[in-house]
């Protein structure tokens, strides 16, 4: 029987996030609806507090309350998601205050979304996994529609809701079938002995439905068409939070499933292979001739999920190290990219078309510099973290023998370099189209600085992060 984590320390991060949300609502009621600047600091404090709690709490290799993993694997992802949430809150603060849609619900729901992510990454039981995912999704549906004046925010929220709800129902039905086939509600146990009870067919159908549901969330190939629309419609900081937080958390859950030595994965290998290959070819196809930078970044995030999925295939053999490292790198670079985008955008609408970026390079040196560095990281060029991340991913894929998948990945990476450089070329090699609005949001510059520092640090000195992950590799199943 797996060890049971004693004491209440593992619950601390969740409690801080939940308490934070309530505190924000309480503060809102005290200030009786007048727009006040107190919400941002509170929520930021809670997010960072939760991250710190996860960092300081000594990781016990055990299960908390039968449903939550208190081991290093969950702890790593909690620190990462809390960090990304803090970044998102910082970006959101400056962005929403200047455009007049700063509301307490915005911050509270962000914290709840973070809580959902933590639950999702730490869930050992299907129930908690589903609840975490739902809490994350519901909060995101509302946050995307938060900016009333943005014409397309409503459309993005609606699309995300309709598709997200259908995906959740697929996921739920999949869980039902897997439970029916094995009688286990534990994620790892149910997948491991899926074939013991002679109902392997049902388990396979169930796992397919789960794959479709989660595939939507991390925008794998056939289900990725929503990503560009939602990323373009939603306000830039929200997109930052949506693209980094939710995808990293969902992928953590998928990683947990992959590491459960389940026979299903072996049976599903050709399907997973095709999904990874399809994603890695669909992403560059979508992004290559894309006039809109946000849509390009959306397709590129789908592409990066394709690389991660390739490494997921190799996870049972090569271990979770590379995926966890690349999740951190992906989170940093996407947060940096969308953060820089939100800083560079004028007040009336988000800087989206590539024409808006002309001549930015030298007029807005810091913000454009951050965007340039994040794009280089996305392209996977040394000395940024993108390179070391991609290196580890391909290393794990090749060591597991997926040579042709790695070749497809490399070709997709080559094409991806083109559409990242197109933005760089527009920024630095063309005359500016219009006078850029002066932006002085200290919060967002802090995030950009952290993102750039993270990208370079992980690029040059990945060893410390890797050693943390090596420690977390033998996590409790």
């Amino acid at each position, binding site marked *: 029987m797996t060890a049971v984590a004693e004491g209440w320390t593992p619950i601390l991060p969740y409690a801080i996030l939940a308490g934070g949300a309530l505190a924000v609502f309480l503060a809102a009621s005290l200030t009786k609806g007048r727009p006040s600047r107190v919400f941002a600091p509170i929520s930021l404090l809670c997010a960072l507090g939760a991250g710190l709690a996860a960092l300081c709490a000594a990781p016990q290799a055990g299960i908390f309350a039968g449903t939550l993993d208190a081991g290093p694997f969950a702890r790593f992802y909690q620190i990462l998601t809390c960090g990304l949430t803090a970044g998102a809150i910082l970006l959101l603060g400056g962005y929403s205050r200047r455009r007049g849609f700063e509301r307490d619900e915005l911050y509270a729901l962000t914290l709840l979304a973070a809580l959902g992510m933590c639950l999702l990454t730490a869930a050992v039981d299907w129930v908690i996994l589903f609840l975490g995912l739902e809490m994350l999704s519901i909060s995101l549906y509302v946050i995307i529609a938060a900016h009333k004046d943005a014409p397309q925010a*409503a459309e993005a929220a*609606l699309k995300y809701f309709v598709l997200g709800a259908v995906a959740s129902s697929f996921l739920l039905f999949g869980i039902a*079938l897997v439970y029916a086939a094995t009688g286990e509600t534990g994620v790892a146990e149910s997948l491991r002995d899926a074939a013991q009870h002679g109902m392997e067919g049902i388990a396979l159908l169930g796992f397919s439905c789960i794959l479709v549901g989660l595939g939507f969330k991390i925008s794998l190939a056939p289900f990725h068409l929503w990503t560009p629309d939602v990323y373009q419609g939603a306000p830039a900081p929200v997109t930052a939070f949506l693209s980094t937080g939710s995808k990293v958390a969902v992928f953590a859950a998928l990683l947990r499933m992959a590491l459960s030595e389940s026979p299903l994965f072996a049976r599903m290998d050709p399907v997973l292979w095709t999904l990874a290959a399809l994603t890695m070819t669909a992403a560059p196809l979508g992004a290559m001739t894309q006039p809109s930078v946000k849509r390009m970044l959306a397709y590129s995030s789908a592409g990066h999920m394709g690389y991660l999925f390739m490494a997921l295939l190799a996870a049972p053999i090569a271990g979770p190290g590379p995926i966890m490292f690349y999740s951190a790198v992906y989170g940093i670079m996407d947060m940096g990219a969308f953060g820089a985008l939100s800083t560079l955008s004028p007040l009336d609408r988000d800087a989206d078309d590539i024409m808006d970026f002309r001549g930015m390079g030298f007029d807005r040196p810091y913000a454009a510099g951050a965007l340039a560095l994040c794009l280089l990281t996305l392209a996977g060029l040394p000395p940024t973290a993108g390179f070391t991340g991609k290196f580890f991913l391909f290393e794990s894929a090749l060591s597991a023998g997926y040579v042709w998948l790695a070749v497809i990945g490399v070709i997709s990476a080559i094409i991806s370099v083109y559409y990242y450089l197109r933005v760089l070329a527009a920024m630095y090699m063309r005359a500016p189209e219009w006078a850029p609005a002066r932006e002085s949001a200290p919060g967002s510059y802090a995030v950009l600085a952290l993102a750039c520092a993270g990208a370079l640090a992980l690029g040059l000195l990945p060893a410390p992060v890797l050693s943390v992950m090596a420690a977390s590799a033998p996590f409790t199943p």
Partner: protein
Amino acid sequence: MIVPLEHILLLAFILFLMGAVCALARRNLVMILLGLEVMLNAAGIAFVGASLRWMEMDGQAFVLFIMGVAAAEIAVGLALLVYCWRRSGSLDVNVFSRLKG
């Protein structure tokens, strides 16, 4: 002795697919949400059947949670529906297709 688990799962599967087809085919947002409810309900049936098969109450506990989640989801969904209906005046899901390409 009641029916074999297989039949219960088939019933759930058919119901699930009917809900899915409705969500996919109908253009009216309300009907899509209804289809969604049917899909969630189908999952509930599968859970209850499975919990009977394994003589465990996990499945039934799951059903309770499903209902909670469904309620929350529908609340937000309908709020969003009304919010979009107010802005666009129509319930057709494809009226919003400015974001494309």
